[in-house]
C-alpha cells in the first residue's frame, strides 16, 4: 500500500457532517423516516474524519467487531462495494444496525476523534453503505460447501438472523421459525417505520434467503412442536433459541384494566406490524389517544410516544421516576422525541389510573420523586415525596417499563431456566440440552438489537464447535502465547480438524 501521510486531528474536517432530517413539526405527522441519511458527498466528507488510528478502539467497541477503519478507508477510496464487503464480513445487516445501534455507547463512544472533537459518525456511514447495497442490489453470497448439518432457529429477530447467517455460511441447512406471519421479530413489530422502515428489514431478510436460509412463518415453536422434537424427531443437529423477552410488565397500580391502558408492545405491534395506522385499509383497529401518557423512558417508550404523536395525539407525556440523566433511551431518541413535542415529566411516578365512570381513562394520578442513594444497578433510587400527588389529564396510558421472559419455551421444554424465567446458558451460550443454544433477550433480558446479534453470532461459533465445523475466523486469529492452550503444537480449538500427513 502506498505510504500515506499520517492524518492528525488538525487535518480532518472539524465538525461532524450533519445528516438530513425531516423537520420535527412535519415528521411528527407522518411515518416517513426521520433521518434521511447521508448523500454520497456527506459520506465522503465524514469518512475523511477518520484518523485511521493504530489503536482502533471502535472495533473493540462494536459488539460484532466490524473492521470499522477498513470500511471507512474503502469509502474514502470510493470503493463502496469494497466497504460493503468489509462490513458484511462480520455484520449482515448494515442498513439495520446503522439505524438502530446505540453507537454513542459503542464504537462512536470510544472513537479517538471523539476525545477532542465530535466522534466520527460511524453509524451514519454504516447505514449509508447498507442503503447503497440495497439500492444497488448487492449481496454477498459466498461459495458455500454443504456440511450436511441441519440447524433450526427459533425466532426470526436479530439474534436468530445473525445466528442463521453464520450457520448458513458454514454450510448448514438452516430453517428459521417465526410465530408471527412476517419474519423480522422486533425489527418488524417493535421498531417503528420512521426509525427503521419495514422495507429495509425485508431487503435484509431477502439477503439471508439468498444464503439459502428458509423462513417458516406462522410457526409457534413450543406449541406446534417442541425443542425436544426438533432434535429427536425433526432431524435438526443443533437448535438456536432467540425468542426474546416479549412479556410486557405492568405496575400493578389501580386502574390498569381500564380501556385505554395498554403495553407499548401492543401499541407498536398494532401500528407497525398490523398497520392499524392505516385502518380501515387494514383491519386491525387502534384506540385513538388524544392525550397520551407513556410510562418509562427507554427506547421503547420513545417509540411509543413518537408513534402516538403520528397517530394524531394532541399531547404526549413521558412519565419517568428518575431524571433525564438516568433515562435508558439513547440520547438521540430523547432529543428527537423532545423536538417533536413530547412533554417530559422527570421524577414522576404514577400511583393510580383514574376512570371517567365509563371504564375509560380520565387521568393519571402521579407522585413526585426525589433521588436517594444509588441502588444495586448503580442508579440513584427514586423516593416518593410525601404529599406531592397531582393528576395528569390523559385518555390513554402506555406502559413501557420493560418486559419479562417469554414463557412458552419454558412451559413446553425441559430446558433449565434461571430464577427469572430466562433460559440458563453457560459462557458459550449452550443450554442445559446438548446441541441447543440460546441467545439474545431470552437469555439476558431486554437489551439492544446489536447485542442480540452479537449473541446470535457467539452462539453460532459454539454451535460450529459442537458440530465439529471449523470456525473460519480462527485462521486469522492471533495464537495465544500460553502453551497450555496448545497441545502438540496444535491449538485446542483446532484439535478436531488436525490432519496428520503421513509420508508416502
Amino acid at each position: 500500500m502506498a505510504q500515506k501521510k499520517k492524518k492528525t486531528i488538525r487535518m480532518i474536517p472539524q465538525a461532524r457532517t450533519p445528516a438530513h432530517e425531516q423537520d420535527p413539526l412535519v415528521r411528527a405527522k407522518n411515518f416517513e423516516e426521520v433521518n434521511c441519511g447521508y448523500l454520497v458527498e456527506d459520506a465522503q466528507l465524514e469518512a475523511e474524519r477518520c484518523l485511521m488510528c493504530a489503536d482502533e478502539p471502535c472495533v473493540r467497541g462494536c459488539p460484532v467487531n466490524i473492521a470499522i477503519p477498513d470500511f471507512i478507508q474503502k469509502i474514502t477510496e470510493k470503493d463502496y462495494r469494497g466497504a460493503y464487503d468489509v462490513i458484511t464480513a462480520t455484520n449482515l445487516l448494515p442498513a439495520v444496525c446503522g439505524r438502530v445501534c446505540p453507537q454513542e455507547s459503542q464504537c462512536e463512544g470510544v472513537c479517538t476523534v471523539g476525545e477532542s472533537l465530535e466522534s466520527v459518525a460511524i453509524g451514519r456511514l454504516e447505514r449509508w453503505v447498507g442503503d447503497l447495497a440495497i439500492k444497488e442490489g448487492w449481496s454477498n453470497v459466498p461459495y458455500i460447501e454443504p456440511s450436511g448439518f441441519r440447524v433450526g432457529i427459533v425466532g426470526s429477530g436479530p439474534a436468530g438472523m445473525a445466528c442463521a447467517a453464520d450457520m448458513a455460511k458454514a454450510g448448514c441447512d438452516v430453517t428459521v421459525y417465526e410465530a408471527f406471519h412476517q419474519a423480522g421479530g422486533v425489527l418488524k413489530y417493535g421498531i417503528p417505520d420512521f426509525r427503521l422502515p419495514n422495507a429495509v428489514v425485508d431487503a435484509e431478510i431477502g439477503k439471508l434467503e439468498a444464503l439459502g436460509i428458509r423462513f417458516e412463518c406462522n410457526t409457534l415453536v413450543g406449541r406446534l412442536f417442541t425443542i425436544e422434537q426438533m432434535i429427536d424427531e425433526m432431524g435438526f443437529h443443533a437448535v438456536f433459541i432467540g425468542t426474546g423477552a416479549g412479556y410486557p410488565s405492568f405496575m400493578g397500580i389501580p386502574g390498569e384494566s381500564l380501556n385505554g391502558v395498554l403495553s407499548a408492545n401492543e401499541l407498536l405491534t398494532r401500528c407497525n406490524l398490523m398497520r392499524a395506522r392505516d385502518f380501515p385499509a387494514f383491519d386491525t383497529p387502534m384506540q385513538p389517544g388524544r392525550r397520551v401518557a407513556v410510562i418509562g423512558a427507554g427506547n421503547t417508550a420513545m417509540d411509543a410516544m413518537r408513534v402516538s404523536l403520528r397517530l394524531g395525539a394532541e399531547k404526549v407525556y413521558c412519565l419517568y421516576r428518575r431524571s433525564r440523566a438516568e433515562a435508558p433511551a439513547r440520547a438521540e431518541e430523547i432529543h428527537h422525541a423532545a423536538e417533536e413535542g413530547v412533554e417530559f415529566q422527570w421524577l414522576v411516578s404514577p400511583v393510580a389510573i383514574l376512570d371517567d365512570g365509563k371504564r375509560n381513562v380520565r387521568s393519571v394520578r402521579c407522585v413526585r420523586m426525589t433521588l436517594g442513594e444509588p441502588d444495586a444497578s448503580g442508579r440513584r433510587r427514586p423516593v416518593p415525596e410525601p404529599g406531592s400527588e397531582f393528576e395528569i389529564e390523559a385518555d390513554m396510558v402506555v406502559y413501557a417499563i420493560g418486559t419479562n421472559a417469554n414463557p412458552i419455551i419454558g412451559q413446553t421444554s425441559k430446558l433449565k431456566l434461571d430464577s427469572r424465567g430466562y433460559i440458563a446458558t453457560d459462557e458459550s451460550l449452550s443450554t442445559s440440552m446438548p446441541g441447543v443454544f440460546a441467545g439474545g433477550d431470552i437469555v439476558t433480558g431486554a437489551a439492544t438489537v446489536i447485542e442480540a446479534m452479537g449473541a446470535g453470532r457467539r452462539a453460532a461459533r459454539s454451535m460450529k464447535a459442537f458440530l465439529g465445523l471449523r470456525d473460519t475466523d480462527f485462521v486469522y486469529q492471533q495464537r495465544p502465547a500460553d502453551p497450555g492452550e496448545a497441545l502438540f503444537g496444535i491449538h485446542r480449538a483446532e484439535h478436531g480438524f488436525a490432519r496428520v500427513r503421513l509420508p508416502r
Partner: protein
Amino acid sequence: MTNAMSGAGCEVVTRKDFSDVTYLLEVRHPMMAKAARPGQFVIVMAHEHGERIPLTIADFDRDKGTITLVIQAVGKTTREMQRDCKVGSHLSVVGPMGVPSHLTKAKKVLCVGGGLGVAPVFPQARGYKENGAYVIGVLGFRNRDLVFWDDKFRAVCDELILCTDDGSIGIKGMVTEGIRLAIEKHPDIDECVAIGPPVMMKGCAEATRPHKIRTVVSLNPVMVDGTGMCGGCRVKIGDTVKFACVDGPDFDAHKVDFDDLMFRLQRYREAERDALARYNENCRMRNPEAAR
C-alpha cells in the same frame, strides 16, 4: 412473494353452514392436528391486510390431519371469511396456542357449552370420556334452528341436556337451568367445564359456586399476537393479572373477574362497528342483489 413475508396458508377442506351466522371450517394442517390438545386455540388471518383473530379449536383429526373451527359471523373479519372461505381456499392459521386443558381423572364431569362455545367444549367432553368419566353435556342455543353437533355430543356424553331460550327443543331456559337440573340429579359431580359468551360463563360460575364444584372456563379476550407479547389479553384472576394467551385460556371460573373481562372486550367496539358498517356498505354496492 417469499415465504418470509407470508405463510402459504392452510387449505380449507370442509365447510358447513349451521345457520345464517354460524359456519364450520376444517383446515388441513397435519402438524397442528398432531400437536393440538383440548382447550387450545389458533390465530387466523383472513388475508394480508387482515387482523389476527383468536379462535378456539373445536376439533382436530390426527388421521385426516385437520383442525376444525366453528365461527360466528359477527364482525367484519368473520363475515368476510364467511363470504370467502370456500373449500379449496387458503387461510393463514397459527397455533396451537395456549396451555392445553388439564383433563383430570374426575369421575363425573359436566361439560357446558353455550352458543358458539358448544364447539370448543366438544374436545373436552371427548377427552373426559376417554379418561373414563361419566360425562353430562349441557348445551344451550337460542332456538332449535341454531342447534349443531348434538349428534357428536350424544356419542361422547352419557347424558345430554339441550336448552333453548324459547323451548323449541329440549328444556326451555338457559344453560344455568340445565346445570341446576344436572346437579339436582347428580349431587356427586366433581368438575364442570363451561365455554361460551362471558355472561354465560359468569352464570355457570355462579351456578356451581354454592356446590363447590371445581369449574373451569375458557376465556377469549382481545388478542393481537397470542404469544404473550402484547398483553392485550390480560385478565383478572383473583388478585393476580394473567395473560389469557400464555397463562390460559383456561382459568378457575370462581376466581375470574367476568365484569372486567366483559368491559375489556369492548375496547375496540366503535372501530369494529365502523368496520362492519363499511363492509356491509361495500357489499351492497358491489352486489345489490345478494345484499337484499
